[in-house]
């Protein structure tokens, strides 16, 4: 790697901050994950709940009082999708 000052400046310039909302969403993954695990576990126990989730995920969650954000919805779709 070239350590002249101009090259260092260019390399610093190469890593601008990611959008803060993206970073925050990724940082909040563990608590979201807990909620997600609860929903998936319930869907595995409750066939009717799973059917409703697969038919209309957002409505089914809202009807049960879950306030799911888009990243949770995406993750749920992946985990509920047939293998």
């Amino acid at each position, binding site marked *: *790697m070239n*350590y*002249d*000052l101009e090259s*260092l*400046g260019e*390399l*610093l*310039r*190469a*890593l*601008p*901050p*990611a*959008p803060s909302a*993206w*970073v925050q*969403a*990724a*940082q909040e*993954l*563990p*608590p979201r*994950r807990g909620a997600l695990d609860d929903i998936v576990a319930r869907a595995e126990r409750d066939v009717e709940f799973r059917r409703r989730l697969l038919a209309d995920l957002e409505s089914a969650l809202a009807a049960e009082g879950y306030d799911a954000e888009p*990243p949770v919805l*995406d*993750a749920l779709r992946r985990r509920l999708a047939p293998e």
Partner: protein
Amino acid sequence: MSSLIEPTDAQLVERCRAGDDDAWRTLVERFSRYVHAIIVQGFRLHGADAEDVFQDVFAKVYENLGKLRDDDSVRPWLAQLTRRTCIDRLRAARDEAVWDELESPEVDETLARLDDALTVRDALASLSADCREVLDRFFARDESYRTIGDALGIPAGTIASRISRCLTRLRGELTGRKVEAPTSG
């Protein structure tokens, strides 16, 4: 002034595995720019596609940290994971004609450059808070001297010399040399 000692990548991974949410937040913060740059500069994804891949990468990291064989290798593992996730996204959206381009030398060159950039950024963490701030604002955030001066409460006319001094110190960190420089930051 020296910065607080940052945990190593391996220490962060170990703490994440143990369920330490603060460690996870630090890990995301540490690698967010790198992942974002690979997605945007390496594979030219933007908007919702880029955001989806970004979240997908960190979800995969979170799910698979337990499978990482060597905690020190989180960085290349993350780069590879991001690369694969970008390629999957592009392959799902485009025709086969662009598949070869996804593995082109140009992508490899960009990823190598970003890897160098992350090495420089790691070295930045060992500088004083003042140096980190002024270099990050000027280069990575593309702020003007005036904006930096207003934000840090220092005369805009001194920014250029501070940048020069801090770059010299950064070079010293990277080359392992102790560079003597004024202590004014």
